[in-house]
């Protein structure tokens, strides 16, 4: 059927990339610390990203617990304002409580955006899978990849330093003049945190640049652009945004740091500067970066749905071009973050452009659903995550439309509706796809199987917890609950409490997943090279892959989704039968 050499084709066996070197613990540490292997770098990124995800998640839980009850302020006998009867508060006095609340939601936002979701999929699964899917030995610039990892670590270090030093209370967006002039006690922290984001930007640029060149230059013989798995297309679109948008945040944060240190007056209205210019600069990066966050999630969803429904993906080219379309339109919509700070004409244009994003996005969603239609769907954890992704991301996408509409946005702007919307996209979309992808490729990465029923339980807990947490926030938002407030009027308490309970279920679900992964590393069953019957090239490699990925350079002879024509490698053909041949003239769909 295929001429792609498989690991068992010939005698000699290279060790897997996880085989520890001779020389004990220190040799292993040095090997990992100096490795230019994209797989090891991917694994190190995964560990870092998941650890920081836990920190950011715990900060979010603290925020949710603080919101269990509104802050009720009374005067004590000495005439000082104190809080009373609150279930949990972050400081003794109301002022302290509010300050720490601001810091915790900033920690949550900054960590989740800059350290988790933006680098999340490209640096972890992207690094690991891209060369494998292309049939290459490594990314185009392996040493640059290592540099990118250390830049990421340096950025993370700066962020952590800022947090240890009591944190930042500006929100993750660092809006001037709040970030440039306010609060002497957080003076250094804003500089540290923006420096962290500035440094992390370089890591992001270098990863994106590396991926673009890899995709252009290192596809294996026989692989044209339209023979690439859709995950690779998603990575390509993501990388373009990373390369073209990140420099703008670089200069913005640099100017903000100048502003903070020298008071140069570029963003400070007191000196003639314009704080809205900061917002334009900031969102010129940060809106395209929303698509850096979601496009990889879409790529993972395409893979999981096609593999576990065992059907050629519906509308391959449409999905591929939709990725590029989203990347392109994504550059033109930043103004919708500032509807309230722009003229009518500009707002209307940005509103119209924002609606355009919905078109390629919907193209993708319909194609995924069409792929599922009449597929032989495997009901396992990755598929469950793919369905969760579809459901949550659709809600997230659709609730974006009222926010893009000028009239409704005036009402919903800066409310919990916005919070719920972007959590449905960022968490319900990207993070869910990321965790689903981790399950999907876990056997490939670690060579171990995870426990299926635990994975499914975790996924269901996450699904329920997530919806309970964030669906209520749509109601809170439409009723007028503003975002980023430490307290609220009594009428909102029930909904806030439901949301908090949901966040606990969500957190517990995440720990179930973590436990499942850890258990699998220690005591998981050995994974076969191709547990799901996938056809893209990573399933031709060993599990875990050997040092140089493939024993021979692969030559591609079939597309990544030809499930109706090709038996998957390393599998018993009886497990994955091909469909009955159709009468002449008829076509599969």
């Amino acid at each position, binding site marked *: 059927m295929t001429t792609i050499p498989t690991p068992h084709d010939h005698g000699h066996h290279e060790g897997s990339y996880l085989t520890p070197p001779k020389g004990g613990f220190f040799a292993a540490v040095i090997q990992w610390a100096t490795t230019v292997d994209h797989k090891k770098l991917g694994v190190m990124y995964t560990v870092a990203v998941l650890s920081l995800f836990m920190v950011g998640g715990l900060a979010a839980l603290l925020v949710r617990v603080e919101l269990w009850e509104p802050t009720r302020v009374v005067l004590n006998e000495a005439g000082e304002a104190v809080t009373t009867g609150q279930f949990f508060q972050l400081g003794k006095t109301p002022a302290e409580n509010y300050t720490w609340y601001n810091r915790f939601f900033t920690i949550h936002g900054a960590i989740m955006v800059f350290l988790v979701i933006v680098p999340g999929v490209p640096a972890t699964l992207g690094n690991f899978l891209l060369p494998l899917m292309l049939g290459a030995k490594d990314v185009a610039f392996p040493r640059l990849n290592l540099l990118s990892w250390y830049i990421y670590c340096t950025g993370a270090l700066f962020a952590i330093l800022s947090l240890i030093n009591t944190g930042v209370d500006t929100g993750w967006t660092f809006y001037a003049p709040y970030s440039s002039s306010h609060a002497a006690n957080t003076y250094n922290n804003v500089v540290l945190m923006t420096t962290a984001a500035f440094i992390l930007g370089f890591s992001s*640029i270098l990863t994106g640049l590396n991926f*673009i060149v890899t995709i252009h230059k290192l596809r294996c013989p026989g692989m044209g652009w339209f023979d690439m798995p859709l995950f690779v297309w998603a990575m390509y679109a993501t990388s373009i945004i990373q390369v073209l948008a990140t420099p*703008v945040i670089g200069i913005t944060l640099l100017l903000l740091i100048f502003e903070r240190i020298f008071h*140069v007056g570029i963003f400070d209205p007191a000196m003639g*500067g314009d704080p809205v210019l900061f917002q334009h600069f900031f969102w010129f990066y940060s809106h395209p970066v929303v698509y850096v966050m979601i496009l990889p999630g879409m790529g993972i969803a395409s893979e999981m749905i096609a593999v576990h429904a065992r059907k050629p993906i519906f509308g391959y080219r449409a999905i591929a071009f939709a990725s590029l379309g989203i990347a392109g339109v994504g550059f033109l919509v930043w103004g919708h973050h500032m509807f309230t700070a722009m003229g009518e004409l500009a707002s209307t244009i940005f509103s119209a452009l924002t609606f355009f994003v919905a078109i390629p996005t919907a193209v993708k969603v319909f194609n995924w659903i069409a792929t599922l239609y009449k597929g032989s769907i495997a009901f396992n954890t990755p598929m469950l995550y793919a369905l969760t992704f579809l459901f949550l991301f659709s809600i997230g996408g659709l609730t974006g439309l009222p926010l893009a509409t000028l009239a409704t946005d005036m009402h919903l702007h800066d409310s919990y509706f916005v919070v719920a919307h972007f959590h449905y996209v960022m968490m319900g979309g990207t993070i869910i796809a990321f965790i689903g992808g981790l399950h999907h490729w876990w056997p490939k990465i670690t060579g171990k199987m995870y426990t299926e029923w635990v994975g499914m339980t975790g996924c269901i807990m996450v699904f329920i917890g997530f919806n309970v947490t964030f669906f209520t926030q749509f109601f809170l938002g439409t009723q007028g609950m503003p975002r980023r407030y430490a307290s609220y009027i009594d009428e909102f308490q029930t909904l806030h409490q439901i949301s908090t309970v949901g966040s606990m279920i969500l957190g517990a679900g995440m720990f179930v997943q973590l436990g499942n992964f850890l258990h699998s590393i220690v005591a998981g069953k050995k994974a076969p090279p191709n547990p799901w019957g996938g056809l893209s090239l990573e399933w031709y490699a060993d599990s875990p892959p050997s040092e140089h990925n493939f024993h021979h350079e692969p030559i591609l002879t079939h597309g990544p989704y030809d499930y109706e024509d090709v038996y998957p490698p390393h599998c018993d053909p009886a497990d994955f039968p091909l469909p009955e041949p159709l009468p002449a003239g008829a076509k599969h769909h």
Partner: protein
Amino acid sequence: MTTIDTHSKRQPGWKRYAFANHFRNAEDEFDACKLGFWLFLATEILLFAGLFCAYAMYRVKFPEAFAAGSHHLDIRWGGLNTLVLLVSSFTVAMSIRCAQLDNQKWLRINLVITILCAFMFFFIKLTFEYIPKWSHGIRPGVLYSNPFAGHPQEPVWWSVYYGATGIHALHVLIGASLLLWCLYRSLRYKAYGPTHYTMLENSGLYWHLVDVIWIFLFPLLYLIH
């Protein structure tokens, strides 16, 4: 990752260089490195694009302040520096051409001229522009202490000026360091020749970028009043 044939150490570096083992051949590697570097240059241009945007916006907002500030700049020093950069751009292109023709001597001479130009640019900028202005209190933002400001918002103009030219000057130094490293490798290994000159070519591209950005900064800051 580089594959160097160690059996023929007497050969010049460019002949010994093969290619990194994850590429199929040397041309693929050269193309990949060039593509990667062009992408990197695109990020540099976007970095400066932010500054140009800020310039445009504040120019529209405070035209008088910009006119007043710009009068303090001496067109002769700016013009001389433009000339210096144009010459250096020519010489760096010639040194790449010399590498392609295996003319090692002129490759180095051209590189040396380029590097000297780089330091000359920096020297002129520092000695005749930054230091005199700074000592007269013409500084960015709150540091501005010149009693004869032509306009209340003149410090914003100086913030833009120092920000843009300062970041550009940093790029001049980075470019000069890259070219110095090329010169060292050329002297030590004869690293660049007809079949292998990737690093030299990319450093040259970086140097052209530094030049191009100055070509835009010069009229915007010095010529328009």
